[in-house]
């Protein structure tokens, strides 16, 4: 049927939208967290102790979250009891899995974009409040933030594919492999940290938030990142094969 794949992607991506009571609670928690974060930054800034790099430290967990975006997208078909409908859709298994993958990718990109903008806005606010906001330092920080988010986004296809593969393995006769998958999750989640050497002391100066000057891209990272993309493609294909042949349902 024409447009079915795009519709599948849209449906999965929009399922992120919460409804009813859950929606109200979700936004209540978002509001509470926002108030707490702004409050903490206000206090720190007034005491002259606000370091915007703290906002980037929070992103260390993003690769793990990226994995979970894809994992839960598949897992919830089983959790919500809708897998029977999903699995009997008359489309190639690769379509079904790829639609989930792309939906998760769209969600992750949106999430990263929101966090990126919020990071810069909070930096403007905090540094404006403590009186140390200077355009060149802010742009230095913005440049560093952009590079770091770029690395996270470049690594996201791999973590998503790994999450998707783990989600399918969990529902298959290969389920005994899950401890290994979780171990892989624990190790790979912070791989971008040590692969990129982005947080090396030579890249930026902890005592000066806007002192970021340059980032030397490790040569082998040019090989590592494209390799993770290839592995991601392989993982998506493997997920489709598992859905086709090895589910325990």
């Amino acid at each position, binding site marked *: *049927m024409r447009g079915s794949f795009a519709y599948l992607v849209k449906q999965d991506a929009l399922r992120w939208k919460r409804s009813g009571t859950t929606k109200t609670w979700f936004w209540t928690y978002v509001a509470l967290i926002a108030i707490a974060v702004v409050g903490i930054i206000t206090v720190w800034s007034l005491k002259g102790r606000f370091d915007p790099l703290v906002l980037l430290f929070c992103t260390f967990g993003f690769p793990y979250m990226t994995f979970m975006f894809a994992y839960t997208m598949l897992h919830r078909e089983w959790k919500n009891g809708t897998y029977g409908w999903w699995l009997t*859709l008359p489309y190639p298994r690769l379509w079904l899995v790829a639609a989930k993958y792309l939906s998760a990718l769209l969600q992750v990109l949106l999430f990263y974009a929101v966090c990126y903008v919020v990071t810069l806005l909070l930096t403007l606010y905090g540094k404006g409040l403590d009186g140390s906001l200077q355009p060149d330092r802010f742009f230095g920080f913005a440049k560093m933030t952009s590079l770091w988010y770029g690395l996270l986004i470049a690594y996201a296809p791999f973590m998503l594919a790994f999450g998707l593969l783990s989600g399918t393995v969990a529902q298959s006769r290969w389920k005994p492999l899950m401890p290994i998958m979780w171990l892989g999750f624990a190790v790979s989640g912070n791989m971008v940290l040590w692969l990129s050497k982005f947080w090396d002391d030579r890249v930026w100066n902890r005592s000066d938030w806007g002192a970021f000057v340059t980032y030397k891209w490790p040569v082998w990272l040019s090989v590592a990142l494209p390799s993770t993309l290839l592995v991601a493609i392989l993982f998506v294909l493997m997920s489709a094969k598992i859905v086709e042949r090895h589910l325990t349902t």
Partner: protein
Amino acid sequence: MNGCAVRCESVRKRYGSKWALRDFSVAIPERRITAVLGPNGAGKSTFFRMLCGITRPDAGRVEVLGRTPGWRTNRDIAYLPDRARWYGDLSVGDSFVWAERLLPEFDKERAEQLAAYMGLDPGMKAEGMSRGEEARLMLVLCAARRVPLIVLDEPFAGIDLISRERIVSTLIDILSSREQTVLISTHEISETESLFDYVVFVDNGQVALAGDAERIRAERGSMEQVYRQLYR
């Protein structure tokens, strides 16, 4: 197809040490309403899942509409899964759009008529529905498809009497006037017996008895009596 919508020959399926189907052989006639009956764990749902290609046999041969089951054959099958739930964020109207976009031969107008008859408000979301309302919605999604085979795995499970009666009367109404093969598994035998043209009793992964409903009734009494005799 030789007059058969479904044909299984010596099908075996095992989950761990437990046999779900063992030398399971059956030929189900087309354009008739067939009941697949048996106690819990008899293998009915495994059989239905095989027809939709979700589960593969370890051995033996399964043919549905003359082909090996898989995602391609699901174009011609409307399947209501066992213990299924519907997407909570979709309203009745959204669900029909979903089905129109993804399920071949889905007749949206027919679905809207059926939903009205079943007392489903188009704006109602599945997450706010009672179990009976959700079951009716899922049944409408299957019944509104103009496909050769409809497979309903326990469509009455956990549903109150009034909803059950409404579903049965809808099934009689829509299925008697069409050229579709329908497979239903249910434990509500006495309420649904009038629907069946053909019956397959399954026990321990094997066919215990199969035949025309009329003939079985004439020879052995009501389906409920036969059920008690077989599974006592």
